Structure formats: structure tokens, C-alpha cells
């Protein structure tokens, strides 16, 4: 993000703070909810929610410098899509992979939120 002729980097930094605020205020809560809901109910609706959330996070993390959020988010999204496609909702290994991924995503998100200006 060089080439800062017209305060472009400063404007991008403002938007990065918007992203971090949303990560803090919205996405961390949704990850936490899914980590509680999924072990109680491996339904298609809960997996759809998982896919939608992780897709959003994967698609935005690296744009703001958080490659790990993109990588882990994509991994969970792929695992959840595979579970639905192959109808492996009852498989313990598949469930464990998604829950571990969400745990990692929460951890990476908390690390990113440390960059939020107070």
C-alpha cells in the first residue's frame, strides 16, 4: 500500500479500521455462536451460516493485510461445503475439522483486533 500521493494510504487505513471494528463487534460474536450451536445441532442451516460467515471473512481478510484470516476462513468454508455436498454431517472427523477451524479463526481474529485503534 505504497504510492501515497493523495493520502490514499491514510484513507485505506481508515477503512481497515472499519473492517477491524466489524471483526470485533460482529464477526467474533458470530464465530462464538457457531462454536456453541454446531456441536448441539449439525444442521444444514447452521452449516449454511458457517459457510456465509467464513466466505465473507476469507474474501476480505487479506485485502486488509490479514492473510491468516483469509486462509483459515477459506479452509473452514471448504470443509463446510464438502460436508454438505458429500452429506458427511454425522462424521466426527469432519465435525472436528470445522470446529478446530472456527477455533483458529477466532484466534486469528482476536490477534487482528489488537490492531484496532482505541
Amino acid at each position, binding site marked *: *500500500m505504497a*504510492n501515497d500521493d*493523495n493520502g*490514499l494510504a491514510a484513507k485505506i487505513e481508515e477503512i481497515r479500521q472499519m473492517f477491524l471494528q*466489524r471483526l470485533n463487534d460482529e464477526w467474533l460474536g458470530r464465530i462464538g455462536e457457531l462454536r456453541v450451536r454446531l456441536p448441539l445441532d449439525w444442521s444444514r442451516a447452521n452449516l449454511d451460516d458457517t459457510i456465509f460467515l467464513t466466505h465473507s471473512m*476469507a*474474501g*476480505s481478510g487479506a*485485502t486488509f493485510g490479514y492473510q491468516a484470516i483469509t486462509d483459515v476462513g477459506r479452509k473452514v468454508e471448504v470443509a463446510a461445503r464438502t460436508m454438505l455436498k458429500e452429506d458427511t454431517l454425522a462424521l466426527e472427523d469432519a465435525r472436528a475439522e470445522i470446529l478446530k477451524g472456527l477455533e483458529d479463526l477466532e484466534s486469528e481474529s482476536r490477534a487482528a483486533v489488537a490492531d484496532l485503534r482505541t
Partner: protein
Amino acid sequence: MSAPQLNRILYVEDEPDIRAVAKLALEAVGGFTIEACSSGQEALAKCAGFGPELILLDVMMPGMDGPSTFAALRATAEGQAVPIAFMTAKVQPSEITRYTDMGAIGVISKPFDPMTLADTVRGLWTDHHGK
């Protein structure tokens, strides 16, 4: 044949921070005029008045998703001939084929680098007009 100059882009994205950074990058780095919309419905409402030369559509949006918005725009007089590219975090080769088979001129993968997004868009535009 050289491509006509690209100026006006209608950009549809539901994520507010991604929408903001893409709009900034396309305007400040690319020099384009951007009309940013947060939903397919908003894009349909604004397309005629804005008169875009290119439309960028996010694929996964709540409510009316990218492919549904694509179909709805194609059914309007104002949007039926405007080149459309999708933007998505899912870039499996089969998906790219699916979207280009629908009539999209290309697919831009997310996440993107704000500093190179305008070049990517311009490349799609040039390739489209080189066909």
C-alpha cells in the same frame, strides 16, 4: 481493435468495508467513476440513471445474489448489453466456467489488493474488447 476508454462502473458489494476500499481504489488509483451499491436491488434501481459501461458484481450476497442480479439486469433495457464481471472469494475453475457461460466477461478473485484492482478491471475490459 483498441478498447474504448472505461470510465463508469457500477459496483455491487454487500460488505461495507470491502465496498469502501474497492470504491476508493477504483476511483483514486484507477481514475474511474464508481456508483457503489450494497445490494442487487439497489443496482437495479440505479443502473438506468447511472449508465454504467461496466458492472462489477459480488457473487455471494444476502437476498438477491450475484447470479440473480446478473439475470435481473440482463432483463432490463439498460442492463441487457452492459459487460458484467463477477467478484468472488470462490474461484474454482468450474465456477469461472459457470459464470462465463452465463455471459460474464470474467471473474475477479477476492481478496484483492486495493493497489492492483484497477489494473485487473482494466485488463478484463481490454480483453473483452479484444475478442
